[in-house]
């Protein structure tokens, strides 16, 4: 069997059912695009965990007055608090960060964003204690013990904030994957429909093939390849769509957060990693749908 001959049949077949082929390609593309988005969110969640990982701290912010009055934590109120924290059996690590140090860290974090640097001064930031717990779940103990102490402004648990972020990210991932599955079901049915129409259009050909003794595999191959080619085109559209979303939406709206390292950026490399997965998923979806349809509905 000559490959060129089979592919010329495939090209003819795709052209013959062009409206159905386009519908099927677009549906597959949307399904795979959503799947790709889901995968990128998974990657983003993992990267966020990696960025913050063991850096997650509890921050005891001192009041603005206290921060200004005792910038280096030398007076009894602040140093006493520090000694107490160091002695606390729940706490594994603690250090003091002055307004000046907080400002330096801020400047480093937003080095690429002059606008962010302009709005902040050292005075606007508070001095704080950075705390790591042996058991990060026991955040409440710290709030109870130190929340009402003199000189303490507020207590922030970064882990709780991250947890909320992960809930949002996981929710988005689940929603995109559910939508991807629904779209995939639609794509599956459209592929099946496309194959049935193609088989009907070419019934004389398939009948002759059957009568002259072409193998079942040979008779089905053009239909399978047609479906797989359409699936791969759908995957290419999905990858193109993801690239457009990255370039024109994510990079424009979240670029600042990406550059400052607060959120992990979606890189071109991430898309390159996702592309073959989408290609494979598109090809398998199309091939399985076409194969099942040929087995069940088309007499060959």
């Amino acid at each position, binding site marked *: 069997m*000559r490959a060129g001959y089979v592919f010329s049949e495939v090209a003819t077949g795709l052209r013959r059912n062009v409206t159905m082929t386009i519908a099927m390609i677009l549906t597959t593309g949307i399904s795979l695009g959503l799947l790709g988005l889901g995968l990128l969110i998974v990657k983003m969640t993992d990267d966020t965990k990696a960025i913050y990982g063991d850096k997650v701290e509890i921050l005891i912010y001192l009041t603005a007055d206290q921060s200004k009055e005792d910038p280096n934590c030398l007076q009894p109120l602040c140093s006493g608090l520090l000694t107490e924290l160091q002695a606390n059996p729940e706490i594994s690590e603690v250090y003091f960060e002055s307004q000046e140090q907080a400002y330096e860290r801020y400047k480093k974090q937003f080095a690429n964003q002059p606008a962010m640097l302009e709005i902040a001064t050292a005075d606007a930031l508070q001095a704080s204690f950075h705390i790591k717990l042996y058991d990060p779940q026991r955040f409440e103990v710290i709030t109870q013990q130190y929340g009402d102490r003199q000189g303490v402004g507020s207590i922030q648990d970064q882990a709780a904030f991250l947890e909320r972020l992960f809930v949002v990210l996981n929710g988005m991932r689940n929603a995109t994957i559910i939508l991807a599955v629904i779209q995939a079901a639609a794509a599956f049915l459209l592929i099946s429909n496309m194959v049935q129409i193609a088989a009907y259009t070419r019934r*004389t050909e398939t009948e002759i093939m059957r009568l*002259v*003794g*072409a193998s079942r595999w040979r008779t089905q191959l053009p239909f399978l390849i047609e479906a797989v080619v359409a699936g791969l085109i759908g995957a290419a559209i999905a990858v193109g769509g993801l690239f457009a979303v990255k370039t024109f939406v994510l990079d424009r709206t979240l670029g600042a957060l990406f550059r400052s390292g607060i959120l992990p950026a979606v890189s071109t490399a991430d898309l390159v990693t996702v592309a073959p997965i989408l290609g494979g998923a598109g090809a398998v979806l199309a091939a399985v749908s076409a194969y099942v349809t040929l087995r069940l509905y088309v007499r060959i």
Partner: protein
Amino acid sequence: MIHLSHVSKSYKTSTRPALDDVSLDVEKGEFSFLIGPSGSGKSTFLRMLLREESPSKGEIVVAGHNLGKMRRSKVPAHRRSLGCVFQDFRLLQNKTVDQNIAFALEVIGRPRSVIKKVVPEVLDLVGLEGKANRMPHELSGGEQQRVAIARAFVNRPLLLLADEPTGNLDPDTSGDIMLLLERINRTGTTVLMATHDNNIVDSMRRRVIELQLGKIVRDESRGVYGVGR
């Protein structure tokens, strides 16, 4: 070449069997007519030889292969030893004459060099030399049937099955087609032809197998269409 032993075929949708206890032998190289009114079982008979359908009862052996015991995967190989011609020609309208014939070889994986060699040979045999590049709609009915015969014969089948091949043709053209089938028969190919054309059957004086209501009612070695018809 063909051996049927007590073959019956029933369909769920019909109370009467399409074939009823049919036993028959056709020798290699024979030319036989299968006659009978519509609904007598001729088409079912041919479809079973092609293994398009299986008998409800009995045994069918074609070219040494027991079709009842044949695995599904072996059916394509069985069909390669047969050729089929139909009343409606069944040509691919979007392919030229030579492409129609080459198609039958392409799809069973014959090498391009073989196809290039045998397609002109068979066109020559059926008298269509010089018409290789015509489209089917540019040909007369007789010429289209010649293309269909060429396609059926190009793989040098042991058995050629023809289902009313002259049904759509005028008497003169039908005569030409019969001459062609005779010529193919002389190469050693067994020919079994279902027909309603009494003139052809009467003029050829070949074996006649007559079916009525699924039963063989007559089997004559040099028969006519029917006495008193």
